[in-house]
């Protein structure tokens, strides 16, 4: 099979996965939740009951013969359209980009679900990107040291760190870090003692290391770090960097273990190969052998796992975003579930699924491109 055939087959399968996921979420939410929550994204509170019924009928969730809105809400017989028909009318709307209005409180009235999602997504993407960079920067050296100092102190230290990452309740780590930096590391700042860092979303209101009033930036992309560089505002960039440091470190600590373990075992596998023996017997320096010969071959499996990590983090880190009040899609999905914003949940799971499936595909293709031994 040729590469492009394989990619096309996987993409077609992705469409089925997305359909299946949307059906599962649709049946779970619309099948059980009160009928009003299915309608809520498309109506405004000011509408009269007759207008709401009209919207429900035009959306295809209420039968045309339904006498009144209260009958629809009470699930009176002959009022609710069968779920599978509802699904098709919902799908038609969703594919045209109409996801209705957001139901999450605290957001400007009239914000559409799509608008909310695209406003929040850059924050999650930025957090995930920084976390993945941190994971790679920490885990690859740890894995290498672990493999070259097998069963010695550096190996044990890096294995314990990796296992601690696997076993760490991230919500707890997030609070402990805040506790340390806010409560126990304080510095005089003006007339009072303030914490080194203080957590409150994307910028700190009061902290020793940051500019308390960094000025504004133009939202070119929605990514604070990129926008602040584009606007030439160094103070804002520094503040954003400080704000992202703790949540990104917390996230990366949870994913560190997986990458370290893969780098370690593939490094050990490579160091056992004949060409390493040959390289050593040629009298090459150990550093050259490890970094130029072994690492180049050992890095491939690490690529795979990094792809999965990136996809999982981009799909939203609900718990870490919640702990640090980070305004990303994961935290918004949690709010959406609390306030029964069914369309946001649908949109979120579908986008996350697209990211996961596409990332897996990209990793597979990249792997085949980099390692000619791999065949489909």
């Amino acid at each position, binding site marked *: 099979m040729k590469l492009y055939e394989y990619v096309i087959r996987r993409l077609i399968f992705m469409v089925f996965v997305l359909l299946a996921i949307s059906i599962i979420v649709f049946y779970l939410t619309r099948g059980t939740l009160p009928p009003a929550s299915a309608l809520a994204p498309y109506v405004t509170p000011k509408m009269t009951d007759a207008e709401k019924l009209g919207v429900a009928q035009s959306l295809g969730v209420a039968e045309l013969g339904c006498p009144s809105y209260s009958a629809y809400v009470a699930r009176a017989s002959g009022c609710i359209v069968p779920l599978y028909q509802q699904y098709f009318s919902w799908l038609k709307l969703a594919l045209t980009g109409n996801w209705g209005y957001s139901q999450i409180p605290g957001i400007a009235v009239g914000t559409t679900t799509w608008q909310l999602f695209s406003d929040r997504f850059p924050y999650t993407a930025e957090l995930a990107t920084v976390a993945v960079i941190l994971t790679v920067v920490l885990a690859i050296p740890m894995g290498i040291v672990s493999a070259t100092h097998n069963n010695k102190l550096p190996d044990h230290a890096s294995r314990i760190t990796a*296992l601690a990452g696997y076993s*760490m309740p991230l919500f707890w780590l997030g609070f*402990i870090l805040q506790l340390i930096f806010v409560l126990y590391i304080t510095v005089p700042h003006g007339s009072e003692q303030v914490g080194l860092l203080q957590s409150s979303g994307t910028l700190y209101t009061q902290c020793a290391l940051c500019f308390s009033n960094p000025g504004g930036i133009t939202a070119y992309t929605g990514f604070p770090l990129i926008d602040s560089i584009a606007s030439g505002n160094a103070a804002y960039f520094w503040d954003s960097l400080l704000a992202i440091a703790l949540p990104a470190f917390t996230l990366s600590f949870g994913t560190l273990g997986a990458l370290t373990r893969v780098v370690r075992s593939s490094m050990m596998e490579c160091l056992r190969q004949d060409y390493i023996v040959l390289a050593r017997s040629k009298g090459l320096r150990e550093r050259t052998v490890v970094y130029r010969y072994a690492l180049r071959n050992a890095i491939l499996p690490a690529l795979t796992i990094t792809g999965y990590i990136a996809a999982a983090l981009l*799909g939203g880190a609900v718990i870490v975003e919640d702990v640090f009040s980070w305004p990303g899609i994961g935290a918004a999905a949690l709010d959406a579930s609390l306030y029964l914003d069914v369309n946001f949940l649908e949109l979120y799971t579908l986008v996350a699924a697209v990211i996961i499936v596409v990332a897996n595909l990209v990793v597979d293709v990249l792997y085949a491109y980099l390692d000619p031994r791999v065949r489909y």
Partner: protein
Amino acid sequence: MSNRNNQERSKEIPETAGEDREKRRKEQPKGELAEIRFALYLARRNPLVIAGAAISVISVLLAVFSGFIVSPDIWKISNLAMRLCWNNPLINWHISSVATCSGTGVYPLGTDAYGRNLLQMIILALPLDLEVSFEIVSSALLIGVVLGSAAAYIGGLVDEAIMRITDIFFAFPGIVLAIVILTVFGRTLPNLTIAVLVVWWPIYVRLVRSQVLSEKEKPYVEALKSTGASPIRILYRHILPNSIYPVLVQFTLDIGGVILVFSGLMFLGFSPDPKLPELGNLVSDGIQYVFTAPWLVIFPGLTILLISLGFNLLGDGIRDLLDPRLRR
């Protein structure tokens, strides 16, 4: 690891005359006993496994006997007079607003917002967390064994169908599916268990399938087929027992992993009762007091970390013991 190990093993058994080696081989116990002794020998050389095993066993024992250590219903009783106080002299929090517990009672880990003894709450939380975790992982294992072995052994359309369904679940952002299930069906303990199980089972299907796939091509399966053994018998009496070890390693590792996810959901506010002694729920309760009574967050979270670390160390160690590269 293997190089050093080989060297040490060869030191123990010097390769002198063939006769000598024969004699030594006869002295050594045979079969399973030798296997176990060799595994124990390797375990002794790895202090981390021992530590993991110790933590796991202690936490399970504490969970089993928690009802005898602490009265099981004590969590329902509030004592607001003793709210958020601390009288353990070993730790000074350096927070001026911390109240000292009045009276003579000893509260090694302080009291919570309901005036309950935090140490008692943690001990009461252990059986709940561990039981739910065992339930979820065992159910996932069972589903994995049935579906995974069916997919691998029958193959064809059955394999395709089962694997595509697991692919769908792998594409779901895990914790959000659990959140949707809890939102829709309500926050009860059985629903929490099911929500985590729905997220967890696909791993086992993939794992069991890949194990059975590699095992069923081996010569002994051919031999069994030629003797006329039934496929069910071959699968359940021969292939599965031979391919179950990596699955058991995953089982041990996942006990810790499931506790993290389960307590994470509790932390996010999906607890059926705000007073319920569950480790994630205890952390969640303590958050609003994190800057005045940090012990409420620190100790329950530390317990989660320790239990999870214990099972992960144990599973990791077992994996090393079973690793053929190490046993060569």
